[in-house]
């Protein structure tokens, strides 16, 4: 289920390098500008890829974790762990 304001924040971070810098310096202050729900806020604080994943477009999610400075290998590993690695497993077994 698309979270509009989370999506909007990710979109803005992608478009505005100044905002991205501000986000790196003080996440909470930037999040305050968007009506983001408490549970989503917590997922942001925890870099909780699995919880954020169903709320935004996958491409925006990838970009967001680039802004967060998460190495792509780690981002991919966290994606693969979603749902106990079921999607990854399915692929491996065709």
């Amino acid at each position, binding site marked *: 289920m698309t979270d509009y304001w989370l999506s909007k924040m990710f979109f803005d971070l992608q478009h505005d390098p100044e905002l991205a810098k501000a986000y790196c310096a003080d996440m909470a202050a930037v999040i305050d500008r968007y009506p983001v729900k408490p549970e989503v806020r917590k997922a942001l604080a925890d870099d909780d890829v699995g919880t954020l994943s169903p709320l935004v*477009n*996958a491409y*925006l999610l990838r970009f967001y974790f680039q802004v967060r400075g998460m190495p792509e290998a780690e981002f991919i590993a966290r994606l693969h762990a979603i749902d106990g690695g079921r999607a990854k497993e399915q692929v491996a077994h065709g």
Partner: protein
Amino acid sequence: MAELIGVFAASHGPIIARDWETMPRDHRDKLAAAFDEIGRRLRACRPDVLVVVSPDHWVNFFINNLPAICIGIGDEHDGPPEPFMKKVYPHETLKGHAAFGRHVIETALDNEFEPALSHRLRLDHGTCIPLWRAGVDPEMPLVPILVNDLEAPMPSIKRCFAWGRLLRRAIESYPEPLRVAVLATGGLSHSIGEATMGWIDEKFDHACIKHFENGQERQLDTFLTTELDRTGNGAHEIRDWVVAHAAAGSTGFELIDYFPSPATLVGAGFASWRLPAT
């Protein structure tokens, strides 16, 4: 009368630009060779205008106004905004072909289509990686057609065929002599920002290529409509190839190259369509 003189497709994964200098030499050579061949064929047909069919990677559009299809009808567009693109393709602006763009959108509106229009688009890596690697003249006037390949719900495969036919009709009804080429970008299979990220579905890719080679719309439609939801999300960009396929008359394409490219996370595909003799 304008004339359709060439139809091509190429992958465009952003890592091709981001990591071009640092990726394994032999892998880069394979990518370079395929893009070079697209460039060679494109130049050989001497286009006056290039229609580029590609997705928008959240550069122009957001979910507050997300077009299914948007046609660029301005005489100028903005170059790629991504930092990794500015490094390799530092064009602040690119040329549009306003008159032909306007003709495409008017033809669409007259024929039961309702694209969004744009007088100025930002052309991201999806459009500009193939332009860069194929060595397309940066002065080439473009008509960008951006297809929603990224966010559900997307245009149906059937409708992408209709768009290809519409594009051909627009070309054939344009009153000036104009050599028009079409370049579709994106695909083949890849998986981005989802639980299967990194997956390259070679089985899907080979089946897909076979259908494009055979040409037949109905079989390709059935295949894609069924299979796209079962493979990685990036494969939805095949919609752009479908538009190209129908524009070329759906008689099939010649594969220039295909290989899984884990270094750039995509099933790298390159093709050139057969055109009916005119």
